[in-house]
């Protein structure tokens, strides 16, 4: 079984300086903050369903930078149409990582669609993503890191993790402050 916090920390360990990360609300925001509160992280605390679209707009604006969207299954399901939009645009620098615990973890752990019938990697592939993978074992995470950081996009990885709550790691939640910090990081020479 993969532990999410550990997995995200490993995937972002010694991350390339150029990497830009957008997080989906809830646990993915806490997981990414726990891995290191880098000023090239943009944390969403709301706007559910918007993480992948935000990543697309950022990727199109910064074609020279790698953009990784790190989100959960519930957030991705709410923005399922954005996978079709991304497939149509074929951004070479965009990767999506779905931390999939098959549950709505913030609201009591109700079973999500991925715990029933929906296969998000298959949806992304059908939308025209270049490569997708789904992993369940820690030893498969090296392949996820390669996909997330290096392979030509659009790509999507689903990491199946244990359900259940972890201690919350809460980064800045004032959206304007997060935005200004992110933009200042990009403005540095």
């Amino acid at each position, binding site marked *: 079984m993969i532990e999410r916090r550990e997995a995200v920390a490993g995937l972002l360990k010694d991350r390339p300086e150029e990497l830009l990360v957008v997080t989906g609300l809830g646990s993915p925001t806490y997981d990414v903050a726990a891995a290191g509160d880098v000023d090239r992280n943009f944390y969403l605390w709301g706007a559910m369903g918007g993480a992948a679209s935000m990543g697309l*707009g950022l990727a199109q604006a910064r074609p020279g930078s790698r953009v990784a969207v790190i989100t959960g299954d519930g957030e991705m399901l709410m923005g399922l149409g*954005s996978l079709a939009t991304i497939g149509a645009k074929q951004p070479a620098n965009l990767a999506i990582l779905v931390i999939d615990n098959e549950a709505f973890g913030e609201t009591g752990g109700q079973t999500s669609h991925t715990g029933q019938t929906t296969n998000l990697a298959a949806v992304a592939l059908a939308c025209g993503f270049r490569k997708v993978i789904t992993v369940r074992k820690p030893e498969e995470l090296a392949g996820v890191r390669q996909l997330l950081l290096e392979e030509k996009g659009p790509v999507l990885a689903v990491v199946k993790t244990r359900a259940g709550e972890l201690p919350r790691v809460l980064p800045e939640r004032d959206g304007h402050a997060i935005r200004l910090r992110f933009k200042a990081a990009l403005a540095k020479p």
Partner: protein
Amino acid sequence: MAGFSFADGDWRAGMFSQFKACGVQQMAYVPDAGHASLIRACHADDEIDCTVLTTEEEGVALLAGAELGGMRGVMLMQSSGVGNCVNMFSLLASCRFPFVTLVTMRGEWAEFNPWQVPMGQATEDTFKRSGFIVYRADTGEDAAAMTGSALRLAYDSNCAVAVLLSQRLIGAKTF
């Protein structure tokens, strides 16, 4: 710009000129017949990256992402799409993202389809209650001037601005 020119008298040419003058580099849209020539003009322009959306709320997040990366954008939609965006508008308010949308109106002038009326009538209030500055254009001249003003206001002063293109201006759709 290769491969496209506006028909004589198409007031959308003035809106497009404002896109260029204000440095618009991304355009996101859910199509509407009233925006058709503007959409074609953007697609024909190598300096504007066009993204067709499955639903309007994607465009709100997309253009917020573009702004994070330093690009100006605009979203084209019709009034029926405004309600699809409401929670996503919280992204603009929470982070003070600049944002501009140009909205073709339905359900307000000689409308044939009753299903367009509820959202058309709620459009202006929905924007205002979501923190937008709202302009309404009744002439082609207004549409161009308001597009330019909306882009400057949004990107110079961190505002969300909607320009409503009245159904009387666009012409009621005939069935």
